[in-house]
């Protein structure tokens, strides 16, 4: 067989396979000739209006309703042929690539209809709403801050997709198309004199711009985050960093908390006077475990809302509240410092108060009602070294039982000490 006839035979085989597979898919429900798609409209006439929209999903356009729906029976709503969170992936596989550095949770969960109309839409890509308004349907707080900003960032006005990928990013966190500095420097030319001057001649071209700037715009000049560390606001970078002319200009003058102590001496001394230090404060990263050194959207230059900052290390404690039948309000509100002193304390658990009963009493007015005897003079019958207090019966971050109790039944709690009453 020569090569030409071989190629012809190969093409015949391929075309036959395609024809057979197409025919078999059409024949899946043995539809009458020409009935494909049109037969559904007999009962769903209003759907004809949907088909008039500018962008129609390919299988819908082809009348292949049975690609996604089973006309007879289904275990899923809307007679879908598959799990609604998986069905799109049967054609659109790889929307979230393996090893992606970040992924949009709706895409990851297959909740595609959150953004796309599966049939047709007047918006490109069958989006339910066009432009930033679609994103702002979920990202409401961002929408509010963007609309209130005095200084706008033009890419935000053009569209979220200027910087973000909608489904996943193989390159960077937060669905960014590339890393922060390479993304920013596409527009902001770092070799210009104004750039150098505005950054105190420090070599910041390859640093993380969002350490100081709010990429979504701001009401602070230079689109800095709302809360700016005073040395940065005054462009006194050399208060913490080596001089801009130094080969290691971005290096800090001191390591750990010693750097911050230069200005926050009283606070550091007060912290060290206490018996118990929060250990991360004295390691190499020190204050920067929780605080941003330049600027932040959070008060006190916290890197994130405090419950996220604390939860980064104490995930087990935060999770306990999530699993708990009864919620403790300060934790729900993310206000860890209501009970804990984050730098240091003379008490275990870095409690803010010497007496746990007083600490709980700040919110719970048990003192005004009758209560089981508690206090330092009331000994715990289980252990003579302990006195009875709130935590004798409750666990403040919650348990799997009601009212943070350690046991499922109240009687189980009582008979811990009142053994004679046990039945």
């Amino acid at each position, binding site marked *: 067989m020569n090569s030409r006839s071989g190629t012809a035979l190969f093409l015949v085989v391929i075309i036959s396979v395609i024809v057979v597979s197409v025919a078999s898919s059409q024949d899946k429900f043995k539809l009458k000739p020409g009935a494909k798609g049109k037969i559904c409209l007999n009962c769903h006439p209003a759907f004809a209006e949907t088909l008039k929209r500018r962008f129609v999903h390919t299988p819908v356009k082809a009348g292949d309703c049975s690609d996604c729906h089973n006309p007879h029976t289904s275990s899923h709503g809307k007679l879908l042929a598959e799990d609604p969170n998986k069905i799109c992936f049967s054609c659109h596989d790889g929307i979230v690539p393996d090893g992606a550095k970040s992924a949009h949770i709706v895409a990851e969960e297959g909740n595609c209809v959150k953004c796309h109309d599966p049939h047709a839409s007047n918006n490109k890509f069958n989006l339910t709403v066009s432009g930033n308004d679609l994103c702002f349907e979920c990202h409401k707080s961002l929408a509010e801050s963007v609309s209130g900003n005095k200084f706008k960032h033009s890419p935000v006005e053009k569209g979220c997709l200027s910087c973000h990928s909608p489904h996943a990013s193989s390159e960077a966190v937060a669905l960014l198309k590339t890393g922060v500095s390479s993304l920013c420097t596409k527009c902001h030319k770092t070799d210009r004199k104004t750039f150098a001057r505005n950054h105190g001649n420090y070599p910041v071209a390859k640093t993380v711009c969002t350490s100081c700037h709010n990429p979504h715009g701001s009401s602070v000049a230079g689109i800095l985050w709302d809360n700016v560390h005073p040395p940065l606001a005054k462009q006194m970078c050399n208060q913490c960093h080596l001089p801009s002319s130094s080969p290691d200009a971005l290096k800090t003058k001191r390591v*750990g908390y010693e750097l911050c102590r230069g200005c926050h001496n009283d606070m550091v001394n007060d912290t060290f006077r206490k*018996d*118990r230090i929060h250990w991360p404060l*004295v*390691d*190499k990263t020190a204050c920067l475990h929780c605080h941003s050194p330049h600027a932040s959207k959070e008060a006190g230059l916290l890197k994130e809302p405090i419950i996220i900052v604390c939860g980064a290390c104490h995930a087990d*404690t935060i999770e306990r509240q999530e699993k708990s039948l009864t919620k403790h309000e300060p934790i729900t509100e993310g206000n860890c410092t209501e009970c804990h002193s984050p730098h240091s304390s003379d008490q275990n658990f870095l409690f803010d108060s010497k007496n746990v009963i007083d600490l709980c009493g700040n919110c719970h007015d048990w003192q005004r009602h009758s209560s089981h005897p508690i206090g330092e003079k009331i000994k715990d019958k*289980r*252990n003579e070294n302990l006195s009875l207090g709130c935590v004798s019966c409750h666990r403040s971050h919650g348990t799997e039982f009601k009212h943070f109790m350690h046991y499922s039944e109240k009687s189980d709690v009582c008979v811990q000490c009142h053994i004679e009453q046990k039945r």
Partner: protein
Amino acid sequence: MPKAVKCILLFAAVIPVAVASHAAEIVKLKPMVSLYADAKGEGLKTPEGIGCDDKSRLVVADTGNGRLLEYTYNGETWTPGPAINLPQLPYPIRVQLNTRGEIYALDGKLRKIARLGPKGNFQRYVEGSGASAPHVPRSFKIDTSDNILILDILTENVLVLEPSGKVIKEIPFPKEYGFISDLAVDAVGNVFLVDSVKKVVYSAPENSKEFSLLTEKLEEDLDFPVSITTDDSGRIYLVDQNGGGIVILGRDGSYQGRQLKMGWKEGFLRYPSQICINKKGEVFIADRENSRIQVFSIAK
């Protein structure tokens, strides 16, 4: 010999070995006694540290009372000795004993390791002469040669000091660790680190210059591990402070079980903070929020 008989003999020989080796892996902690008070009857207050030796000598960091307490075992009971109150050690949180009976204690407030004589007299702070930078000890351990291993969270190194205090080795922390709370060194010199945040154990074999992961994330088994030690067989014991339990691993990091639960009664723990095991298989746990020391034996 017929083939069938050979097979039966082979099975008879192999099965007991297999059963025995499996049984040897199952370790249980059996409650022996709990220690609540000093010689005058004054109660312990949130003790966090515990050091033990092979002669059934025990030194407790009675943290809430700002002192050390020694206990000795006479074959029947644990007897408390006089309290050790030192201005140089106002808030002891970790304790270790060396082979010469000297006491080492980390002070949580001063963040210094105090070296005391066998009778509790203050000698000096362990400074680490020859270290490349100042250090902040989060914890420390003493090996069988009385070398002092310091978990230095400022320089992110394990410093190995001769008994004289001279630094002989620095092993850098593993990359991308969460927060390392404690270290252990076994009888042959393998060093282990416990990461409280990532819930993993790292190991550096003897003479190694770096740590590598020994375990996968023990997410399901640990809430917040804060203390680590090994027994005479090389098993690894992790104190799960927030979960009120002890997790046991094989020397290869394999999970071998979880012992004890959170509670008040003896045999239960509330926020335990340090563990010590001697060659006799006695296990001592500083049961912090129960303000007591619990002694267990290892039952196999």
